């Protein structure tokens, strides 16, 4: 039975449990709601939760464990002789899985009967031909051991699914019945629901944290793998970035410094654009603008944040680049060779970051208590004096936070760089030259058809790790600054 149906049936059992549990609690109180410990709906939820949660947990665990178990059993069936010299056990297992799937699909399409698919004496050549006729992808030659294994795989799989269905549904019914039995007037159903809500929230939070840990671990292990193949000192201190795609390592030079420099340079240009403009517009919006102007201007500014970065990239490539070229290029000052340059990407990225700075700063400036402004006005300060000397210092921790958030965005930005800054990894001070960033290079390293075990592909993880450590450091710095000023200003 498909998982979807099992889920639906469990939900139906839970719904029935809800109604029955509620009715039973009411009946035990003689229909008087005031005699119940909790509101009737809590008794209903008690039954529904006890029907759903164990069944769903069982399904999840089963779905994780069953494939592992089946694979290990089937893999054990394959003798060493069944594995060709040029191949590996993993590849043969993939073949087994493919054949099993093909058989499944062929049976579903009616090309092969269920008996034939299970028959131990089935003719290998015949099966292969029939599978091909059914449009299933198989290698030209299915060997006897592979077919056997595939057949066994299918049987174990369907038995497992059947067992899971029965177990899950039984568990749901049992849970509902148990909860309905519990539901008497003095039963504290409200506390049960309260606990379940807490557990639900805790599990949601832990999923986020566990995912983060998982990502970090995958980064760490792949980075270590990379450093086994390529010396760490060359990676961190190398001044050249020239991966070779032809050979397997050796000739590649994978120094991270040009990429870091490009990232840093482009981010600095972007922040130099975004911070003043964003901050000034935030000050205007929160302190000077009339409510009507604010109501129109703020959402319009925030629209900038909703534009996909690829569109900014196009804007950089097709508009800003040629524009800069016409001023600084060969026809003008002669500093710029092509439209793709640090300046192009930086300017466009700065525009992209304006709403991040302005929107957050605006909220923070608005949060500065009016009493501060009154105090300053009461001393005869003008509006701009008040803003410069009272409001901004009071809002500083938040503004620093906003700027650092914008900085993390700038460091992590990819599309604008790919389209606007070019792809040349270069250590140069000229902002009108093409450079590239860590993120852009991660993309180009992984979109080629390089082998995933080669240093050219694995270097992406090392780059990702470097980026992760950088942004983490930036966030910690932001927290530290915010905390330090908070101590002072509260």
């Amino acid at each position, binding site marked *: 039975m498909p998982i979807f149906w099992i889920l639906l049936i469990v939900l139906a059992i839970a719904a029935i449990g809800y109604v029955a549990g509620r009715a039973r609690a009411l009946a035990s109180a003689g229909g008087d709601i005031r005699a119940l410990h909790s509101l009737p709906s809590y008794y209903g939820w008690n039954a529904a939760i006890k029907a759903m949660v164990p069944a769903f947990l069982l399904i999840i665990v089963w779905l994780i464990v069953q494939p592992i178990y089946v694979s290990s059993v089937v893999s054990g069936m394959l003798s060493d002789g069944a594995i060709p010299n040029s191949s590996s056990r993993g590849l043969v297992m993939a073949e087994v899985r493919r054949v099993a799937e093909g058989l499944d699909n062929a049976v579903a399409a009616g090309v092969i009967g269920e008996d034939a698919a299970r028959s131990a004496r089935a003719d290998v050549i015949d099966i292969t031909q029939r599978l091909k006729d059914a449009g299933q992808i198989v290698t030209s030659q299915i060997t006897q051991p592979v077919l056997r294994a595939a057949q066994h795989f299918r049987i174990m799989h369907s038995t497992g699914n059947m067992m899971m269905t029965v177990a899950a549904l039984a568990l749901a019914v049992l849970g509902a019945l148990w909860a309905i039995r519990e539901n008497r007037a003095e039963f504290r159903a409200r506390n049960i629901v309260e606990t379940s809500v807490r557990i639900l929230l805790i599990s949601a939070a832990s999923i986020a944290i566990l995912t983060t840990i998982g990502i970090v671990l995958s980064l760490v292990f792949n980075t270590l793998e990379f450093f086994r193949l390529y010396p760490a000192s060359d990676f961190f201190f190398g001044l050249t970035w020239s991966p070779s795609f032809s050979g397997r390592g050796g000739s590649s030079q994978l120094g991270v410094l040009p990429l870091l420099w490009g990232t840093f340079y482009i981010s600095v240009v972007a922040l130099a654009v975004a911070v003043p403009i964003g901050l000034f517009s935030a000050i205007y919006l929160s302190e000077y603008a009339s409510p009507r102007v604010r109501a129109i201007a703020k959402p319009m500014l925030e629209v900038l944040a909703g534009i996909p970065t690829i569109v900014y990239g196009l804007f950089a490539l097709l508009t800003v680049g040629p524009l800069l070229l016409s001023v600084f290029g060969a026809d003008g000052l002669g500093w710029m060779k092509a439209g793709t340059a640090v300046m192009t990407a930086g300017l466009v990225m700065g525009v992209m970051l304006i709403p991040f700075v302005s929107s957050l700063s605006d909220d923070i400036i608005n949060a500065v208590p009016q009493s*501060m402004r009154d105090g300053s006005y009461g*001393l005869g300060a003008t509006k701009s004096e008040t803003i410069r000397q009272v409001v901004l210092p009071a809002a500083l921790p938040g503004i620093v936070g906003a700027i650092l958030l914008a900085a993390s965005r700038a460091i992590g930005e990819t599309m604008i760089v790919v389209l606007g800054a070019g792809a040349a990894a270069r250590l140069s001070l000229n902002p009108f030259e093409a450079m590239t960033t860590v993120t852009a290079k991660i993309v180009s390293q992984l979109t080629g058809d390089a082998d995933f075990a080669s240093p050219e592909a694995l270097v992406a993880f090392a780059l990702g790790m470097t980026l992760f450590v950088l942004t983490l450091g930036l966030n910690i710095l932001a927290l530290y600054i915010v905390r330090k000023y908070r101590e002072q200003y509260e």
Partner: protein
Amino acid sequence: MNDMRPMERKVDTKEIKFDCRNVQVYYGDTQAIKNVDVKLEDRTVTAFIGPSGCGKSTFLRCLNRMNDTIDICRVEGNLLLDGEDIYDRRVDPVQLRAKVGMVFQKPNPFPKSIYDNIAYGPRIHGLARNKADLDDIVEKSLRRGAIWDEVKDRLDSPGTGLSGGQQQRLCIARAVATEPEVLLMDEPCSALDPIATAQVEELIDELRENFSVVIVTHSMQQAARVSQKTAFFHLGSLVEFGETGAIFTNPKDPRTESYITGRIG
């Protein structure tokens, strides 16, 4: 009374500092102050009392045009400071507020050091020629604010780290530092405990030697303790104005009597 400029005079010769005639204040369409006529004397503590919402704070805020920051607020009538209409087109509210300082209900020290809090006003008005001058102003103001002894060793620590009573005295010292002629206080003790209140009241009494002080208060005892003149507001009108002693012992208006004996308000 023709010469309205502040001059060397004996303390007992009372000059009129603020002459308010026929003042009306509107918030949008609602009239918050109706026909208030009052003459506030120099070097005197004048208390505004009255039930909540009677307009006493609104009137106080008219005296240094703090109501300008509220868009819908409109002021009519004449408010003369030393004979000059403060709502005249030629008057810069920023300069007016330097002359008429204000202390607020809740202590609102700036998120700066104690020193910078005091130096804020003198710096924007260019009162100090050099650093030593500024140091002098800060010390003098803190002494006038009766807080110098408590903070002289930690002028660099943030003003927000002080206790509530210290913060309020810091705010008074900050207002004093710009050498105003009038000091407006909007319920300066309502957020303070009795000890801090006593300190602030003592301070107000000392300030009388140099400034004209106008204080809004909800505490009748406080008004009786610190003020020489008392004005009783009710529903936007000035009901009674006179010597504090007379108001509290022998009120002329039945509403004043009801209020000070606790029957209304």
